[in-house]
């Protein structure tokens, strides 16, 4: 088996590692993904020391369980789902909360009308986004990262959390509502330029006309 090199795709690197146990192969996976795993841990846990410990534990888990990767999804999707679950479990243990997602997810109707435009979140600047995310609960944070940072489809997010698609849509909608409220509280000056309000006003004017 050829030694691992930077041109190899993730799956080739994994197969090579499983065949040869060469640390170069594992190092390659670490170099590719450690930054992203750390970034997610930092956003979810909100503390650099915790994020470092979590990243180390996650990669140790990956090292021990790489043979269990069944290749049904991309390696990155599998790795990120381990990351999200690890961080959420950590927060759950720390806060002794049984459910990280609210009960409303279970009662989600089949059709969820998400009337909050993505622009509301995507127009925040970096500092605002960090503050808004830290004020949300971990479940909301994870789900927003999956959707807006990883670009995951609702179907994939639902599979990762073992929930229905409508439950995930409901969770995203609720997370966006909560983010909007927090934004309004923390950045009241922004209210004057609230895109959603402007759009609502425009559509009302359009209907009246």
């Amino acid at each position, binding site marked *: 088996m050829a030694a691992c090199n930077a041109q190899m795709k993730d799956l080739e690197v994994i197969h090579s590692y499983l065949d040869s146990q060469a640390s170069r192969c594992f190092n390659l996976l670490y170099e590719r993904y450690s930054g992203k795993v750390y970034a997610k841990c930092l956003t979810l846990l909100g503390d650099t020391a915790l994020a470092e410990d979590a990243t180390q534990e996650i990669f140790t888990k990956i090292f021990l369980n790489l043979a269990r990767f069944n290749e049904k999804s991309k390696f990155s999707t599998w790795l990120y789902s381990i990351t999200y679950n690890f961080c959420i479990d950590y927060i759950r243990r720390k806060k002794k909360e049984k459910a990280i997602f609210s009960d409303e997810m279970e009662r989600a109707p089949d059709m969820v009308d998400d009337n909050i435009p993505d622009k509301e979140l995507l127009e925040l600047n970096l500092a605002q*986004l960090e503050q808004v995310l830290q004020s949300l609960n971990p479940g909301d944070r994870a789900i927003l990262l999956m959707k807006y940072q990883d670009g995951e489809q609702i179907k994939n997010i639902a599979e990762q959390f073992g929930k229905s698609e409508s439950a995930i849509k409901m969770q995203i909608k609720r997370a966006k509502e909560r983010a909007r409220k927090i934004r309004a509280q923390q950045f009241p000056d922004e209210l004057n330029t609230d895109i959603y309000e402007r759009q609502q006003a425009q559509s009302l004017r359009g209907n009246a006309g």
Partner: protein
Amino acid sequence: MSDNKPNPFEEMQDEQIRTFFHGPADRKIKAGIDGTMGTFRFLGNIADVYLTRFVDTMVGMANGVSERDEEDTSGHGRLPQGDTESPNKDKKYPNL
């Protein structure tokens, strides 16, 4: 134009990754993982070398014959037949 504005979620991630690779966190985590991997490999090697011997010893103590012993007595590790002829024909002390 807001449409050209980069996604702040991705910007935030890029910034966090930059901080990660420029600070001590990367090296610290890597060293920790290498240490853990080294420990697991060491334990694996120990198990490989000694566990089989330990099992054989236990089997021997129980007056059984382990698979390895059977393999040994079935010709493994012996000299070729042609070389086993000893010039000593004394049946009472064949090893002399």
